[in-house]
């Protein structure tokens, strides 16, 4: 760990292990990676430092992820809404995306990531955004409007059990819980 003064205090490390799905090594790696993002002058108080969003998304693990901004937004505890991450937010994120996390908590956060307007439900607008994220920005891969409508219609038919035109958390979790490969792909490993 470099032996610098900026390592995690042992009792806090224990608590982090208790509270996340991460092992000690993973927490230490996370700490190292996080401290690389923090500017030099703040290195000695990493636990209170915050990393702005545009730095977080340069992480190779998040670089190619179409949901990078959403992930930052969901896990950020910043009051002023700039989506910066503290070390604990960072750990929260890694814990949810770790191998050992239960699919329940994974689906909970997946829902929040997909909920683009943060209103607690996936409506047509959210789904449209989601499809656009999944198909990329290139012209060749975008879906046409009619295709998009068809797709969203199908999805709502399948998942919107109470037919209110939106998908809420329990409906979402119901769908996700039956999926064979959600838990294996909803993963980020440092």
């Amino acid at each position, binding site marked *: 760990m470099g032996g610098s003064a900026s390592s995690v205090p042992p009792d806090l490390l224990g*608590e982090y292990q*208790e*509270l*996340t*799905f991460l*092992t000690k*090594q993973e927490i230490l790696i996370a700490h190292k990676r996080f401290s690389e993002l923090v500017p030099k002058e703040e290195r000695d108080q990493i636990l209170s430092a915050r990393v702005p969003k545009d730095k977080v998304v340069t992480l*190779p*693990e998040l*670089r*190619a*992820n*179409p949901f990078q901004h959403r992930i930052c937004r969901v896990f950020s505890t910043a009051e002023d809404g700039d989506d910066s991450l503290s070390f*604990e*937010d960072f750990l*929260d994120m890694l814990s949810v995306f770790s191998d050992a996390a239960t*699919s329940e*908590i994974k689906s*909970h*956060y997946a829902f929040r990531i997909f909920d683009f307007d943060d209103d*607690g*439900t996936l409506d047509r607008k959210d789904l449209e955004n*989601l*499809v656009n994220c*999944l*198909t*990329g920005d*290139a012209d*060749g*891969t*975008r*879906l046409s409007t009619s*295709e998009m409508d068809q*797709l969203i219609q*199908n999805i709502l038919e*399948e*998942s919107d*059990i*109470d*037919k*209110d035109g939106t998908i*809420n*958390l*329990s*409906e*979402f*979790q*119901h*769908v*996700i*819980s*039956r*999926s*064979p*490969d*959600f838990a*294996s*792909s909803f993963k*980020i*490993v440092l």
Partner: protein
Amino acid sequence: MKVKAKYLKTYQNFHVKIGMEVDGQVQSDPESEEDEEEEETIQRPCSREAIKSSGQEKNQQTKEVDESEEEDEIFRRKRLTRKTNRRVKNSEEELERLKEQVEEKKKLISTMRNKPWRMAKKLTVLREAQAFVEKFEGALGKGKGKKFYAYKVMMAKKWVKFKRDFDNFKTQCIPWEMKIKEVESHFGSSVASYFIFLRWMYGVNLVLFGLIFGLVIIPEVLMGMPYGSMPRKTVPRAEQATAMDFSVLWDFEGYIKYSALFYGYYNNQRTIGWLKYRLPMAYFMVGISVFGYSLVVVIRTMARNANESTGDGDDNDFIFSWKMFTSWDYLIGNPETADNKFASITTSFKESIVDEQESNKDENIHLRRFLRVLANVLIICCLCGSGYLIYFVVKRSQTFSKMQNIGWYERNEVEIVMSLLGMFCPPLFETIAALENYHPRIGLKWQLGRIFALFLGNLYTFLLALMDDVNEKLTEEDVIKNITHWTLLNYYNSSAVNNSTFSPPPIDPADVPRGPCWETTVGIEFVRLTVSDILVTYITILVGDFLRACFVRFMNYCWCWDLEAGFPSYAEFDISGNVLGLIFNQGMIWMGSFYAPGLVGINVLRLLTSMYFQCWAVMSSNVPHERVFKASKSNNFYMGLLLLILFLSLLPVAYTIMSLPPSFDCGPFSGKKKMSDVIQETIELDFPAFVAKIFSYVANPGLIIPAILLMVLAIYYLNAVAEAYQHANAELKKKMQVQREEEKNKRNNKATTNLATQDLEDFLTPSAKSGDTKSDSTNKNSPGAKEGSMAKNSNAACPGRGATMVPPPHVTITQPPRQSIKASSPGQARSGTSPQGLRPGTRKGQPCN
């Protein structure tokens, strides 16, 4: 409006407090805290909705608040009296309750990571809970039990810590984690799954290697007769001149043939060394336990995989939703792969839309059928052809082996032909499969099945030809056995005649005529096959991937067309082919390890190097797949293939052990009629007589046949049970579907009924309305919020007429927000929590925000 919200807030807090005091008693209940948070998030819509309700309602609310305050007062008083009582009595009851609370807190601590809270909140709650446990744990237990209890608690703590440390240690011991992660981030989880499989295989082989090396090779080398002391451990006189040449060693002849790597080296001495180590017995048992261990490991892994995949994959209810919500692979960290993934997701979206639109459109079914039949005929021809070719080549090699002065090609013909077939047949199959025009996923399965059949056919033809060879050697052996006997007899006789006083000088072990030792021949055959397989794999990677990548990269500057995008381009990593190669290699190891104990060592080296080599090759010269498959479902498919191969490789080995006579002058079982006789010998000589008796009883067919019958019956029974479960599962699924349909119909009906009549109904019988209507409107008010807290919220925020009489049960407050799917079925979960006649003013079809 704000005032109102605030007011509501305080009201809720009251209830929260009551709930806490009733059940938490000492400190705030974290679950209710959580609820509070939930409430805050959905406060807005609900309060807005509450505004709509009449002023009269407000009055009711105040009334209710007053009431609840009174209740609160009563509670407090009660608690006080109870407290004093307790102080006097200090009853067991209280201790029990405290204990329960401590247990609860402990449970909370252990499950805290499951809660979707912020870290800061988790930290505070954890600290509080820990402090609580800390404080009251010591007070528990009394008198004699106290010390023991404290000890128990301490040990439990230590145990938890130890477990965590052990887990940390375990993860530290997993090799190549970073390497695999790097590949994962570039190529997604499917390519990484190959490397994880490779690592798993390495682990299994390491255990097998430890078994064989520790229990067979090391004892023989350390305690057995040294090299050169007896014929089986010496190079024959005729071969001695060339025994050290590299060309000879490369073919595993010469010194290597007479080394501990092969079966023939081992002595049939019953016990060796001062430990009285029973080597033949150990050899036999290790040979069997190699298979036993592999079987157990493979089956356990399969069972675990099956357990992990909880979702039933063949469920067709959510095709689109799954594509939408679960198709992104979050492990992808490479922009190039991400682009591929975008493209593949788009095509899959489009495909499924088209499928949905015209699911049953087939333009020319006859042509397609004809093409499929044709393709299968072609492929069967290929398989037969390759099988015959191998049989022919092995036969030819037997004639070659009798000739002197044969070239390198003749000696290695079998291996070369097998490797070439393995290299060129799969692409051929792929070309033929293009005729069939299957969906790629189904096409992949077919392709895998065909390659599997090819490899299997080749392996078994090879084995059959080898069997012929072995039988030939066995007849040859009989002749040589007599010759050897005669030579030795004559030698001793003549020396006895010449000089009767001295014992004759022992004959030099290199000069003794000896049999062909078919076991070593088989072992050598397998080792050569393995080594040539390794070489071919590596050369293919080097030429096919690396050189191709170099050529494409550097010649692209001066070429007439775009090499990278056009014809040669970069190679893709062939997951299925690589996995199958690995599986077949393992089959060869299992078969060969009985005849060549050193084979597992070679395999361990191979896996080790291929881990590094392939990782490097993938990162340096491959591009991600055009269509990125996910690995989760195919895992058990590969494991199933592995199990099949294991079983198939068990057959020939078991056959030789049980029915072929071992060579008379080499190997640990020489001199016995069958290899399995070693067990009988051990039981008779090393165990007391009654064990032998028991064994003979057990081995009696009269016992074995009933045992087999019993097993068959057990299998039948378990099968029946499994079927019943499946049936029940299907039934439940059907029920759920029916329910869903019903719900849908209900909604549709409702949507179409006249709004006016609905209003009338509402007006006339507000309390008669079932939970359905309520849930409908609650859903519209604050959709997406958790159902449980939502229902309670509507309780707390907008109590109706009936609510005045029925104070909201405290369950709603401490209820965890984690509602299962059931809660989403309307009218079921809510009817219990929400009071009747909620919000008489709101209308069904009309969202109130």
